[in-house]
């Protein structure tokens, strides 16, 4: 589904290199966790995959479903099925969640040459998806993220993920700012959305989210590269030992 080869990326006008030759292969049905210390390049990877301005890919390739992802505009990546659950979802005052999602869904459907969703079908989907993350249906008609608590914002991200049914979901620090209950709700939502045709990349600093969403692979990102990959047990090892031992191992 996703093949990243020798990815180098810089940020800002100074061209500071953050990703320094990253490799990753994600197949349908898999869950990958990317862990690493602060400043390792985790969020940069998410931004580069989503196509955020301000990042420049200087070397390497990213192929998604047979297409050169880096050639596509941000919105076209989304239409192809790349979804980013934001670490800090922005507020859009005056734009209702419903209106926002309806616009998004119909853009994506148009791209797939499907008819716009009928109001009734859309509303049924809203009910189903909001129930999935126990999101108060009232929030669906409020402005996008405006006045939402931290937990509500994260649940809203997974609600949108349920609505848009992406092929590849990248969860960027989705666990940050969540209490135990919200963490469980969000994780259950992600687990229910998982199937053999889609894939999830979980970017996280801590392993606690991985108690709920069991990854098939854990990768350690340090200084712009994946320095170690392993099964889910690797996450526990990291939790116990921290990240420093990896540096020692490298030396």
């Amino acid at each position, binding site marked *: 589904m996703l093949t990243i080869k020798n990815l180098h990326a810089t940020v800002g006008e100074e061209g500071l290199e953050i990703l320094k030759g990253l490799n990753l292969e994600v197949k349908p049905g898999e869950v990958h966790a990317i862990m690493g210390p602060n400043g390792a390049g985790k969020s940069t990877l998410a931004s580069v995959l989503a196509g955020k301005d301000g990042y420049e890919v200087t070397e390497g390739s990213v192929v998604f479903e047979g297409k050169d992802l880096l050639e596509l505009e941000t919105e076209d990546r989304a239409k192809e099925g790349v979804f980013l659950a934001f670490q800090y979802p922005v507020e859009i005052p005056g734009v209702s969640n419903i*209106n926002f999602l309806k*616009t998004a869904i119909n*853009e*994506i459907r148009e791209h797939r040459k499907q008819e716009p969703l009928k109001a009734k079908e859309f509303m049924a989907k809203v009910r189903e998806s909001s129930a999935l993350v126990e999101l108060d249906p009232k929030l669906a008609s409020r402005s996008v993220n405006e006045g939402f608590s931290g937990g509500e914002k994260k649940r809203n991200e997974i609600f949108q993920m349920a609505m848009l049914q992406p092929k590849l979901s990248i969860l960027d620090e989705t666990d940050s700012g969540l209490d135990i209950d919200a963490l469980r709700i969000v994780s259950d939502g992600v687990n229910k959305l998982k199937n053999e045709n889609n894939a999830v990349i979980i970017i996280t600093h801590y392993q606690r989210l991985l108690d709920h969403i069991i990854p098939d692979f854990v990768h350690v990102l340090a200084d712009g590269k994946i320095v170690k990959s392993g099964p889910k047990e690797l996450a526990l090892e990291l939790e116990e030992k921290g990240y420093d031992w990896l540096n020692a191992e490298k030396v």
Partner: protein
Amino acid sequence: MGYTEEELAKDLENQEYKFGFTSNFESDKAPNGLSEEIIRFISAKKEEPAWLLAKRLQAYEAWKEMTEPEWAHVHYDKPSFQDICYYSAPKQSKKYESWDDVDPEMKETMAKLGISLEEQQRLTGTAVDFVMDSVSVATSFKKKLNELGIIFCSFSEAVQDHPELVKKYMGTVVPSKDNFYAALNSAVFTDGSFCYIPKGVRCPMELSTYFRINEGGTGQFERTLVVAEKGSYVSYLEGCTAPMRDENQLHAAVVELIALDDAEIKYSTVQNWYPGDKNGKGGVYNFVTKRGLCERNAKISWTQVETGSAVTWKYPSCILKGDNSIGEFYSVAVTNNYQQADTGTKMIHLGKNTKSTIISKGISAGHSHNSYRGLVQIHGNAENARNFSQCDSLLMSDTSGAHTFPYIECKNNSAKIEHEATTSKIGEDQIFYCKQRGIDEEKAIGLIVNGYCKEVLNQLPMEFAVEAQKLLEISLENSVG
């Protein structure tokens, strides 16, 4: 052509001031320039009663002594008032020989606005059948209004058919000496709209100038007078969301609203006049005086969406004279390229328990400048007056400017005045968020801007709101920088 003022003077001499239908001006067009003779000519052309001519001349005398206001935050070359033609025969909107002759750009814009093909053809005057049709539609509406005693006609018709009403109310809210442009308008206005709602009548439909499209193009110096008798209600729509390629450089209109005891007037405007090209060449100067008077328990609500004109100078205001009266002002002003807008409102609290609300949303893109200027004035007798003002500015580019000039004058200790103001730049994060969900940049900006203006757009009648939303999107195309 080639007709000079001297020749005019000579003609006037020979004709012994007999104008009207035996006029020398076969073209039905007065020579350029402004003088007492021209005003007499206009008045005679329109067969006006003597009192109205006297009013015009008084206004002209006052205007001659006045100077153009310079306090607004706008810069432009002052129009030369002697180079303007103050009267030409009631203009039709520009006629096209056939639909194929219509400017393709204009067609495209109208299509984007979602205006039906029939409507498009009607607006460009190419669908003869449809025009006939719309006249009959208008007539049937008029019949219904007549049954209720509602008068809705052109200002000229009102002068002829209801002189007592015009005489009683005209100039009572905006005196002819009010300001430079109001004085000019009072001297030379050519037409406009008149609306009268009898006591206790609730006007059953939105009164829109759409109904009078065949009488449109009333020109640069329009006058509107709306009188709502005790306990009546009317919602009045002015303007048109279609692109009006008006050749007139200067527009100086006057709008007067009078809401008698317990009456309510809702006045909505969408203004989309030619803003000039991308380099700031051309475009309309829009210098308008709009004011409403509220008697006891009356309410006046102004809603405006301003996207056009090169320079806008406009402050729809409310005089809250009666106790418990309410004034509201909801505004969206968009400026792009080199447009300049200085707009806002005045809320004059005279009566007790008077309330006013001001919601202003400015959006500046390109190299434009957008200013909010508002006055909240609480007079000594206005016990328990309340005002809430919210002025938000949204910047779409690094080269545009947003300015807020709020004035508050309070002479009563029981007043409560709140003012909130914000300035923000359209968030790249917001746009990225939308794009990541599959929404392209243009649609994203449309969503964000419409969300930002929601409180104001919600005040507009439904169909108008939909068109206004599209208009905002079109006005801001390719404007993020």
